[in-house]
């Protein structure tokens, strides 16, 4: 009887370990493709907005800035934007500012941005965007490309590809400005 109880507990223990192990493997395989987490100051970048007015990245210093490079021809970018709109809505009052530089022609972006309901500043350019991406650490030339810059202007995260919502929320919570 006692042996059966020990055997039963052992099996339950093994099941728990197996479940935890399986979940850990799943989390590892499902994690977003992060490039790195380099802490360095973001360079000054100037790009035109949809009114052809030059805007500097430092304009949003003091906020947590998520620079999300996108394009109207980039399906993963268009897929990610609705989630970013909700994130901006959710965290805007707590100091998050998403900025969306588009690698595209002005007319295409002027049409698409309102259709997508983008509620954050959209910047636009062609080679200027490529240069800006490279200045912010891009080595692949692929979109979407996102860079998270904290309130002090330090790059705290860079990533190609779409964000997982939970991972992005966790990241934002970690780096939101104090107070």
């Amino acid at each position, binding site marked *: 009887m006692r042996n059966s109880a020990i055997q039963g507990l052992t099996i339950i223990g*093994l099941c728990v370990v197996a479940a935890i192990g399986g979940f850990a493997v799943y989390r590892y395989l499902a994690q977003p493709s992060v490039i790195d987490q380099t802490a360095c100051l973001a360079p000054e970048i100037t790009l035109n907005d949809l009114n052809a007015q030059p805007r500097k990245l430092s304009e949003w210093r003091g906020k947590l800035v998520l620079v999300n490079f996108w394009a109207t021809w*980039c399906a993963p970018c268009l897929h990610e934007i609705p989630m970013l709109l909700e994130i901006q809505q959710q965290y805007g009052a707590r100091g998050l500012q998403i900025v969306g530089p588009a690698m595209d022609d002005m007319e295409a972006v002027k049409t698409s941005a309102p259709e997508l309901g983008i509620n954050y500043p959209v910047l636009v350019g062609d080679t200027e965007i490529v240069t800006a991406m490279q200045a912010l650490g891009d080595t692949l030339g692929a979109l979407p490309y996102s860079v998270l810059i904290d309130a002090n202007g330090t790059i705290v995260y860079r990533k190609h*590809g779409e964000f997982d919502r939970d991972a992005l929320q966790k990241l934002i919570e970690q780096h939101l400005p104090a107070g």
Partner: protein
Amino acid sequence: MNPRIGSLLIVAALALSAQPAIADGSLLQPREQSDRILPVDEAFRVQPALWQNGQLIIGIDAAPGCYLYRDKFGVVVLAPANLVLGKSDLRAGETHHDEHFGEVRVFRDRLLARYKTPSATPPQKVRIRYQGCAENLVCYPPQERVLTVETVR
């Protein structure tokens, strides 16, 4: 407890613990597709432009998980000036349903196009343009490359 039943329970627990990963496909997809985003020149390898048997041959190999848009591909002769290419034998490609762009034609392994010229004059230099994506990960901006044509006898 019967040891066989214990073993079965362990197997069941392992299967259950792996279920979320299987359900979202992360265990079933190639690692390089989901975990590593390639630079554009590794995602799409442009082959040397060849002139063979009176035909210009242009080829681009797409890495696993990457595809090229058919309608974004094009070739222009830079030299000799005024040489115009005839129609290519580019295949139709396969249909790809895109959530935003609808049905598009793509090439997943290799894009291969052969062109004839009106007087069988070989082009010396061409400019190609192409664009593609890594499935469900990223898209690459339109690319242009200038190629010197090699004659193959």
